[in-house]
């Protein structure tokens, strides 16, 4: 009977334990609520560090909602229970307010949250007013930019820029876009913090802890030196250089030169001076202050899509054989990566060209140098397409003729091209070429800045007024007439505007190379533009990307590709898709079965018909890594090449919990110390009276006999 009772009791205890154990695991979840958002992280250049970092084990701050500018006063004038973490809406996230927090809030502000919600925002750009002002063309004998007026923001290339991207903050900044997360934070604030402000230091407050500790510090020079420093205790990587790939492709395939020596970059590689190119370039990257959120719709995607449309149209306008051209010129399209960070891609490209390393010897083609390039057309930002400025540094006949041809060809497209000679060059890749040779024949197509969200998280499809029309039945690269196009898209849509710009440039180039208009009818297809904008702004699992990929490849993810250049270890999907796009748009379809469609330049892709086709491609990658990381003993302070790196980090997380007040913590600690002292005293008293208290016990030292020897 007793056995039965005992076993029943044991069973009861075990089941209670299990029930309590399940409950107790959820206690941790009841204390902490995790918050997801995009973090601001640290980037370094040759001389400075920029961005944000938390303290090593997380930065904790009590929440405080900012709704009007006066709410900042509470935080900056001796708040009752520092440190605080203000929740700031985007329209108050201005240079003035944030710099005030940085300068005056050293002890009272430990973290900043940017709460999404774009209702009252009219401008939100945190790039400098003169982007890339320390690279590119500089005034002689100084490091001031020659192409942008830094003292006069209205005439600068980014008039609404606050420059916060280049400031260093001692606290972490987190951007929370999801409305549910924001409501979680706001309701916790209302429930625990938003009353009895004088009593803040005596009660528990709703707080956040942000873990965004950045390992690299001081500057690229220091963090690269520390990363490369070998010592016995193992190596830590402090920072990674910003690195990616440029993509290039030619309209006509180039001849193979088998005698190019592999790996040697010197005069033994003979350039063919008679081979001439027209270089058409744009950039593929963008930047923003927060991790993983950078769409860059107006600041770089319009130029990129314009170049893709020009490539596709020229492929159909110009004859398939270059021998029919009046001028035997090939067209080289190059799309640079990393241009937002002091022209990483274009500086490396120019460096490679100077060293006879473009294209690299492994491609078995003759190197291309400055002398082979007749004209460079650089597509900058096209914020509005009714007037496009054609910038050139020096007044040349070539530029004037090109503008004249452009204007004559764009009669039907409502675009006015204006020649703009002088130092007023926008911050685009051409600056890397002009810096090395001021007489380089570069012209830049750029319109007057209108983008109030340059290099920010809000430069998205809405900023472009883009809607995806998704005309599924059509062949999207086929040239169509204006009447057909207007049946598919309204005249004011961004698809039609880009199509107008790209068609006028393509017609002008055809006129110059062919000395007559194109033999085929029709203009650039706005369907291709629609597809491109959809894939890069809305989702990468789109029809266009599927068609240009090899058969049976995995579909892209349901979100747009990341176009920030990032570091070597990131997926680099933007350059991957660009490579495939250039491969598809500029290649010739050849009648080769799948088994024989290899190796490169032959490539078997799915194709728009869905049955698979073989294409003879002309595309390739080049490295977009700044020469500063390749040159031994590079002088990091010289400013000659881009020196941007990104700090490494271990984890980025955020959580919300109730932080006890200082009074509570002191009381808990004091009670603990008092209990400790009492226990010591009690033990002493008990042990000194042990003979009285414990009957029959002898003193413990009697049990042992005295030692006889050591």
């Amino acid at each position, binding site marked *: 009977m007793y056995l039965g009772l005992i076993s029943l009791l044991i069973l009861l205890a075990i089941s209670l334990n299990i029930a309590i154990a399940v409950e107790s695991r959820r206690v941790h979840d009841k204390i902490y609520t995790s918050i997801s958002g995009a973090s601001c992280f640290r980037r370094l250049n040759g001389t400075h560090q920029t961005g944000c970092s938390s303290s090593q084990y997380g930065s904790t701050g009590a929440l405080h909602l900012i709704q009007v500018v006066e709410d900042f006063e509470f935080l900056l004038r001796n708040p009752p229970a520092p440190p605080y973490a203000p929740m700031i809406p985007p329209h108050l996230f201005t240079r003035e307010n944030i710099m005030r927090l940085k300068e005056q809030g050293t002890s009272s502000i430990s973290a900043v949250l940017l709460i999404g919600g774009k209702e009252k925002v009219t401008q939100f750009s945190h790039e400098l007013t003169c982007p890339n002002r320390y690279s590119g063309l500089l005034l002689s004998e100084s490091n001031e930019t020659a192409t942008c007026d830094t003292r006069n923001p209205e005439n600068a290339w980014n008039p609404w820029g606050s420059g916060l991207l280049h400031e260093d903050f001692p606290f972490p900044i987190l951007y929370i876009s999801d409305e549910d997360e924001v409501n979680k934070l706001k309701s916790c604030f209302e429930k625990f913090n938003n009353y009895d402000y004088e009593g803040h230091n005596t009660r528990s407050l709703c707080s956040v802890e942000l873990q965004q500790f950045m390992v690299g510090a001081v500057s690229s020079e220091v963090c690269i030196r*520390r990363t490369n420093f070998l010592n016995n205790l193992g190596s830590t990587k402090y920072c990674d250089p910003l690195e990616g790939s440029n993509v290039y492709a030619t309209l006509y395939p180039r001849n193979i030169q088998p005698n190019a020596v592999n790996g040697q970059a010197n005069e033994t590689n003979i350039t063919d001076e008679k081979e001439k190119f027209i270089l058409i370039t744009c950039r593929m990257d963008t930047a923003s202050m927060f991790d993983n959120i950078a769409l860059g719709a107006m600041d770089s995607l319009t130029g990129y899509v314009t170049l893709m449309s020009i490539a596709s149209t020229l492929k159909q306008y110009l004859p398939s054989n270059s021998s029919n051209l009046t001028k035997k010129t090939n067209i080289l399209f190059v799309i640079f990566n990393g241009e937002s960070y002091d022209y990483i891609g274009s500086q490396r490209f120019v460096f490679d060209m100077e060293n006879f390393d473009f294209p690299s010897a492994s491609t078995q083609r003759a190197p291309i140098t400055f002398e082979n390039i007749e004209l460079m057309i650089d597509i900058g930002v096209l914020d509005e397409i009714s007037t496009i400025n054609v910038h050139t540094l020096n007044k040349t006949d070539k530029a004037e003729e090109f503008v004249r041809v452009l204007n004559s060809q764009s009669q039907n497209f409502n675009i006015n091209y204006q020649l703009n000679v002088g130092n007023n060059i926008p911050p685009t890749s051409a600056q890397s070429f002009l810096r090395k040779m001021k007489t380089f024949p570069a012209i830049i197509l750029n319109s007057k800045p209108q983008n109030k969200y340059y290099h920010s998280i809000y430069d998205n499809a809405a900023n472009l007024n883009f809607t995806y029309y998704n005309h599924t039945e059509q062949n999207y690269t086929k040239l169509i007439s204006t009447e057909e196009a207007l049946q598919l898209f309204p005249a004011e849509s961004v698809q039609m505007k880009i199509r107008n710009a790209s068609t006028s440039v393509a017609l002008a180039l055809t006129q110059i190379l062919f000395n007559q208009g194109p033999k085929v009818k029709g203009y650039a297809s706005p369907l291709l533009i629609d597809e491109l904008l959809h894939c890069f702004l809305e989702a990468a699992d789109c029809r266009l990307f599927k068609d240009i990929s090899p058969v049976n490849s995995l579909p892209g993810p349901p979100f747009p590709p990341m176009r920030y250049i990032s570091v070597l270890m990131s997926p680099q999907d933007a350059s991957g898709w660009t490579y495939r796009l250039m491969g598809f748009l500029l290649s010739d379809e050849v009648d080769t079965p799948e088994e024989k469609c290899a190796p490169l330049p032959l490539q078997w892709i799915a194709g728009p018909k869905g049955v698979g086709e073989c294409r003879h491609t002309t595309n390739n990658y080049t490295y977009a890594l700044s020469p500063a990381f390749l040159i031994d003993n590079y002088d990091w302070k010289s400013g000659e090449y881009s020196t941007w790196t990104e700090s490494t980090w271990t984890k980025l997380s955020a959580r919300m919990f109730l932080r006890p007040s200082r009074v509570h913590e002191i009381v808990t600690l004091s009670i603990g110390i008092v209990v400790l002292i009492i226990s010591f005293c009690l033990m002493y008293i008990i042990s000194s009276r042990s003979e009285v208290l414990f009957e029959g016990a002898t003193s413990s030292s009697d049990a042992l006999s005295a030692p006889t020897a050591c």
Partner: protein
Amino acid sequence: MDISKVSNEQKLKLCRTYFLAGWAFLPFVWTINVFWFFNDAFRVPPFPEQAKIKRFVILSLIGAVIWAAILSTWVIIFQTKRAEWGAMADYMSFIIPIGKA
């Protein structure tokens, strides 16, 4: 080892060994020498070897104090000036702090 059971000559020999060992850049050996033989050098009623033991203990004490002064000065200088010294300080360090200069 319990030196209360050891003869006086052996005590002297031990003290001297420790004193000589400390010259091999081992200031902690001198510190141990001081603490170990302090009672025998100063508090116990005089015995023949006590004068020599006293001398060794005092010399060990002086040596340990000088070493302590040198080491603490170097530690203070390095900790305060490491950030300013830049590359040279990095080459001297085994563990370079992360996230700051």
